[in-house]
């Protein structure tokens, strides 16, 4: 499987915050969720990919080419949606198209207006009259209308209601249907990623916790609910993190399959992405 994006040992030193040697690959036809709490380094990674800030080490390849040497030509093939609309309030959607037509070689006006129609966005209203959801939809229409191969989304669904979020997620699923394109999707709304992500890359405090397929991840982690006495019996090697409450303990366990046999008589649930994140970040460690 060919990679659309390859990141190796990516490092950025801000002094008070360091992104430390992060590596991952995004294959064609996939959606990768980039998760982590606020300030973990997700936006720093996205900015480095887009050459908006300077890296202090490592390499980034997009479509097999170095992202700095081939900037800005590479950007013809990338669509970007940031966490807010960056179009000026006084512009109208029709004017956005005229501007973009003069920026992107492959701008497809008909496709853009098709998206506007689909999103029910008015062509003749100024953007300042748009709701937050409409603004994000406009950004998505703009990001898709030059037919990019890679879509990079920085928290595009935060602050949107579930209906709009679902509509947007459907668009992303359609986008990768032809198996030639890919999406890097940063979000802390884990339920969105549960729905659409094929891969999860988890960043914490500037370091990579893991980058693997969602299936593998869900297969790997499990949650044991037990009393404090039982907790003492769990092999420390198996514990990722745990939380105590008035009823006992909740423990995130690695190697779920093997440990199902080991802790045969215990209650072991599947863990979802949110559990895995929470236990890694907030759970107590041994």
């Amino acid at each position: 499987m060919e990679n659309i994006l390859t990141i190796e040992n990516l490092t950025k030193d801000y002094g008070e915050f360091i992104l430390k040697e992060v590596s991952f690959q995004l294959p064609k036809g996939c959606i990768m969720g980039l998760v982590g709490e606020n300030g973990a380094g997700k936006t720093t990674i996205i900015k480095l990919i887009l050459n908006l800030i300077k890296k202090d080490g490592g390499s980034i390849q997009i479509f097999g080419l170095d992202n700095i040497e081939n900037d800005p030509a590479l950007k013809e093939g990338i669509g970007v949606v940031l966490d807010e609309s960056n179009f000026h309030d006084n512009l109208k959607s029709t004017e956005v198209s005229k501007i973009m037509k003069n920026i992107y070689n492959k701008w497809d006006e008909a496709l853009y207006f098709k998206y506007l129609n689909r999103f029910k966005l008015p062509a003749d209203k100024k953007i300042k009259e748009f709701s937050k959801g409409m603004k994000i939809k406009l950004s998505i229409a703009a990001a898709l209308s030059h037919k990019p191969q890679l879509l990079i989304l920085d928290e595009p669904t935060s602050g949107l209601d579930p209906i709009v979020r679902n509509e947007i997620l459907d668009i992303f699923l359609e986008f990768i249907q032809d198996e030639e394109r890919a999406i890097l999707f940063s979000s802390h709304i884990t339920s969105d990623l549960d729905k659409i992500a094929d891969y999860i890359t988890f960043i914490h405090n500037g370091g990579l916790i893991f980058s693997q397929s969602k299936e593998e991840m869900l297969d790997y982690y499990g949650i044991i609910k037990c009393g404090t006495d039982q907790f003492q019996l769990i092999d420390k090697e198996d514990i990722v993190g745990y939380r105590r409450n008035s009823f006992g303990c909740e423990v995130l366990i690695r190697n779920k399959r093997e440990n199902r046999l080991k802790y045969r008589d215990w209650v072991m649930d599947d863990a979802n992405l949110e559990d895995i994140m929470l236990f890694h970040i907030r759970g107590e460690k041994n």
Partner: protein
Amino acid sequence: MKGLILKDIYNLRRSLNTFIIFILAYSIFSYATGNIAMLMVMSVFLMSSMAISSIVYDDLAKWDIYALTMPVTRRQMVLSKYILQLLLSLISALTAGFCALLVTSLRGDLIGLSTILDISLDAYIAFLASLVYLSVNLPLIYKFGVEHARLLMFGTLFIPIGIIYILDKMGVNLPSLEDLKGLLYLSPLLLGLVLILSISISYRIYRGKEM
């Protein structure tokens, strides 16, 4: 590049409409008073801050970080502001010159070659001044941001005026406009140099900016 300039023109639409109303009002005023010099100076002065206004709009929308995710270079981002101002200064100088000629002829004054030359010269000087103003201020804006550069911009406008005023009061013999006419022939070259210097400083600052 064309897309960037188009975006600025859409954003400045309202200011450009104000400019048209202003120039009509000032033309009527000039017709009544016979003073056309002010028409030239004020119209170009109004237009000279347009590129700076466009940067204010870009800041409000957080446009630059978004634009740089597109196939646009940092050099083009900087250059587009200079080209925008060059275009707007040219248009305002031509419009003001045309209005001045119109006002003069409506007043029934004789329009000879010398009148046309005088008006053209006024328009040209106003055009030069607006671009020099931009060339001094744009690097400051790129360095300090529009908010912080405001005070400095105020300084770049009034300090030279203040110095000339003080020198004049001290009895220093300042060169008259007639003396400066020789410089006029050199002015396109000088303006070119000032612009190139300003663009390269602005680009150097902008190139190193982390978005």
